[in-house]
């Protein structure tokens, strides 16, 4: 895939990682203590799997690491952009130069081709004459 499409893909990945991060954290966050007068509710009976709490405290770290990694990859792709300095005019000038050179080489090629075809015709002509002579000189057995 070309690099601009990769960059566009990376931007979309950063966006989706960001909203997944915020959405998941906001959905799964434990409730906040408002004041000392309202103590925490009693803990629920231990039917929930105990991995829930440990998963939750790891999740911000994992997801923010993914976000930073995506951003770093974007920076690496930007650094790999093959943009030559000079902008549009320099590119158009180079295209005009290359077209002129292409025309010149094309004409040279055409000349060589015509000369080669002429020589081919001559050789074919000579060859057919030689074979005719051979056939005429050969005595029938």
């Amino acid at each position, binding site marked *: 895939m*070309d690099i*601009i499409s990769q*960059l*566009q893909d990376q*931007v979309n990945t*950063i*966006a989706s990682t*960001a909203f997944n991060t*915020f959405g998941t954290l*906001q959905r799964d966050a434990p409730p906040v203590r408002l004041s000392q007068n309202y103590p925490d509710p009693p803990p629920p009976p231990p039917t929930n799997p105990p991995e829930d709490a440990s998963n939750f405290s790891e999740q911000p770290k994992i997801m923010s690491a993914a*976000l*930073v990694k995506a*951003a770093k990859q*974007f*920076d690496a792709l*930007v*650094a790999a*952009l*093959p*943009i*030559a300095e000079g*902008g*549009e005019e320099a*590119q*158009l000038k*180079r*295209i005009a130069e*290359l*077209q002129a*050179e*292409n025309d010149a*080489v*094309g004409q*040279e*090629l055409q000349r*060589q*081709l015509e*000369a*080669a075809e002429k*020589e081919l015709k001559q*050789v074919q002509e000579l060859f057919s004459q030689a074979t005719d002579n051979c056939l005429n000189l050969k005595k029938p057995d």
Partner: protein
Amino acid sequence: MSTATYPPPPPYYRLYKDYLQDPDSAPEPPPPIEGTYVCFGGNYTTDDVLPSLEEQGVRQLYPKGPNVDFKKELKSLNRELQLHLLELADVLVERPSQYARRVEEISLIFKNLHHLLNSLRPHQARATIIHILELQIQRRKQAVEDIKRRREEAQRLLQEAIGTLEGQ
């Protein structure tokens, strides 16, 4: 524009009744359209150009001007994006009701990023043309060399043949 549930086909087929006998009796095909046209009730244009951000009502964050330094602007937009995401996380912790402004700023940065990347496409197209022209020049030069070589070899063989024949 009138609409009907099951409209009949257009009646233009009658104009082509004598086409087999006289091809000129039928009307010419319509010329290609230029500019804007209406198709199934929608407006389309034949002039494909990337509309600038102001035309879409979006504020442009990177400096305008003839030559934009794409790499620098892309990197600084990336950094801005990360800072805004951190700000959003802070706002959600302290003042959760004020998230809307931050989310709007983040989407503004994303729109700017995509617009910058889209405006790189013409540059990419010209670079592709340059690459193709260079390849073509290289192939043509190679072909010229090949033809020269073969002609010289043919001349050499003919000279050898002449030598052999005269030697006999």
